[in-house]
């Protein structure tokens, strides 16, 4: 316990839900305030900027649908990262795992020879598998050779991005695309159905929500979930309990990478209908999902809400680009700020602050000494 003037700070072991929610909102608010200075410095009135964003995203059906469509890959990647982060596995590689899923889906769509109603399910299955493989490699490297997981997952993003580039400039370049670096368009049976008058590929959304629910059940109700939590919270205890570090790491990255792979399937089968430049397939969803997962604080269900929030930021980024002629990178600035403020307010989560009146001071001072 510490005191500072009339304020008494007491440590608490577990933050309450209300405190988490309150401080998370505070962090977002603080980021919005700093952001308004950046708008102002850029010569755009912050009030105008925020009103444009509000009107065009939350204020119209089109805007709401755009938020939803951006939230789909963020949700799938975010749920996967929640699982990984619970085991303290630093998967920064959702971007590459997403692309791996997109590559597998493209192969099924264009080159597998499969057609008919089984095609889309097969795209999802192989997309999950490809993302999982891309996730498992860093897990093996970490457990077997102590290769830092941040670095390996990150490097795998670059490797997959160049692999995709090679495919679209080389063997998979579409003969009907007149020299552009795309694959051919997918045949119709490889297109995901959309909600009318929108780009929301609802099957992927349903899979995403199901994944969040399943992940919550796995983490709270299964032996694997228990082992994941022990490995994450206390590696020493996990060691003494005989929990296999290798097993947990492999499972965690299989799920995490696989879910990101599903997000990639959704993007190519639902939006683009072909494989194209990696930074067009994904606008950094895999990186933003890190913040989605961090804000969700280990809860896959909370990732449903946080992915919608960052879906909103992506949709807003589009609007800012079109209406206010500011670069899309403004979303990166905002995302970075939110992440900073989130970890900044974390300090307060573990302290209970109370005001003490003058008369009680001595009593508290006495207790502090004991």
């Amino acid at each position: 316990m510490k005191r500072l003037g009339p304020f008494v700070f007491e440590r608490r072991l577990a933050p309450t839900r209300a405190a988490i929610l309150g401080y998370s909102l505070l962090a977002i608010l603080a980021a919005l305030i700093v952001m308004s200075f950046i708008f102002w410095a850029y010569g755009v009135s912050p009030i105008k900027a925020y009103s444009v964003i509000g009107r065009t995203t939350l204020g119209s059906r089109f805007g709401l649908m755009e938020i939803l469509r951006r939230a789909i890959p963020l949700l799938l990647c975010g749920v996967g990262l929640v699982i990984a982060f619970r085991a303290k596995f630093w998967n920064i590689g959702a971007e590459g795992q997403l692309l791996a899923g997109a590559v597998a889906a493209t192969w099924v769509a264009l080159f597998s020879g499969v057609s008919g109603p089984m095609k889309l399910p097969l795209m999802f299955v192989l997309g999950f598998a490809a993302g999982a493989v891309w996730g498992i490699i860093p897990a093996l490297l970490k457990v077997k050779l102590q290769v830092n997981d941040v670095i390996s997952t990150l490097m795998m993003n670059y490797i997959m991005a160049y692999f995709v580039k090679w495919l679209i400039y080389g063997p998979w370049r579409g003969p009907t695309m007149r020299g552009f670096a795309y694959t051919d368009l997918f045949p119709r049976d490889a297109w995901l159905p959309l909600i009318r008058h929108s780009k929301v590929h609802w099957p992927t959304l349903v899979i995403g929500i199901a994944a969040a629910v399943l992940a919550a059940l796995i983490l709270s109700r299964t032996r694997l979930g228990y082992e994941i939590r022990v490995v994450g919270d206390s590696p020493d205890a996990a060691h003494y309990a005989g929990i296999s570090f290798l097993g947990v790491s492999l499972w965690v990255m299989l799920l995490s990478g696989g879910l990101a792979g599903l997000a990639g399937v959704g993007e190519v089968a639902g939006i683009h209908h072909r494989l194209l430049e990696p930074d067009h397939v994904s606008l950094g969803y895999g990186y933003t999902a890190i913040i989605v997962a961090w804000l969700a604080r280990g809860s896959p269900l909370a990732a449903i809400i946080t992915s919608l929030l960052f879906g909103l930021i992506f949709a807003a980024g589009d609007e800012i680009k079109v209406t206010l002629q500011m670069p899309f990178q403004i979303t990166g600035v905002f995302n970075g700020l939110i992440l900073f403020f989130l970890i900044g307010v974390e300090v307060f989560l573990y302290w209970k602050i109370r005001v003490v009146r003058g008369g009680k001071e001595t009593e508290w001072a006495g207790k502090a000494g004991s």
Partner: protein
Amino acid sequence: MGWESWIVDTLRRALAYGTPLLWGTLGEIYAERAGVVNLGVEGMMILGALSAFAVAQSTGNPWIGVLAAAVVGGLAALIHAFFSVTLRANQYVSGLALTIFGLGLSGLLGTSWVGISLKNPLPKATIPGLSRIPILGDALFRDHSYLTYIGLFLAVVLWFVLYKTRWGISIRSVGESPSTADAMGINVFLVRYLCVIFGGVLAGVAGGFLSVEYRPSWTEGMTAGMGWIVIALTIFAAWDPLQAVGGVVLFGGLYHLAYRLQRWFPPEFLKLMPYAFAILVLAVAGLRKVRRGAPAALGLPYVRGQR
């Protein structure tokens, strides 16, 4: 081509490509030796690259540009120091936030500088005397950037400071056991702040090297993952400034050798080589059990009076 000129050429290219990696790695070594991981190297480098280019182009003097990069890199690192040392936030997440923020901000502010080539890039120099040494003189001391020479010199100085001076003992003890260091009367917070900021200054210069010497121009995202390779090299070099030189030359050499293969491989495969190498060198380091060199308190925030 004879084998001599082949070696000279490979070493030369390795050093030129490796110079920003060297500056970045030396900085990260100091931050991590004091116990603070900074995953924001990529963000600090890109902010350094943009500020160096913008200032060099505006003033016409590339050295002022490099100075601006150093200041901006240091300021960016100050943010990380505040969050990770003072607020004791998760160092990984704080560094990631710095990278996301830096990439975003440089993209936002850099649009008007895209596609311009710098009027006055940083000059190259040949060191008299040393450049006369057969083979090595041509490879190491002829027609390199000043920043390459300063970087090599800095590696030696930083090694000496780390292992042979009281300052070095302070830094290492803060990274190994902050509570012991605190008991010895060392200001743990000050040492950590200074080392993180120093790391940022060097990362800023590394970025500046790219935009006022290596390219010399500004493109969005031009650091292209070099900041992450720096973090891999820091581990590979076992947190030792002299080993960092070896790591950087090895890395640059492998990268250059990959380019010699371009007749047989598509360009995308050559471009992904550095990233594959980064994983490879860490796997090799894992086999060599380099982890023993890691500062014991790396990544852990220090709370006075708590163990």
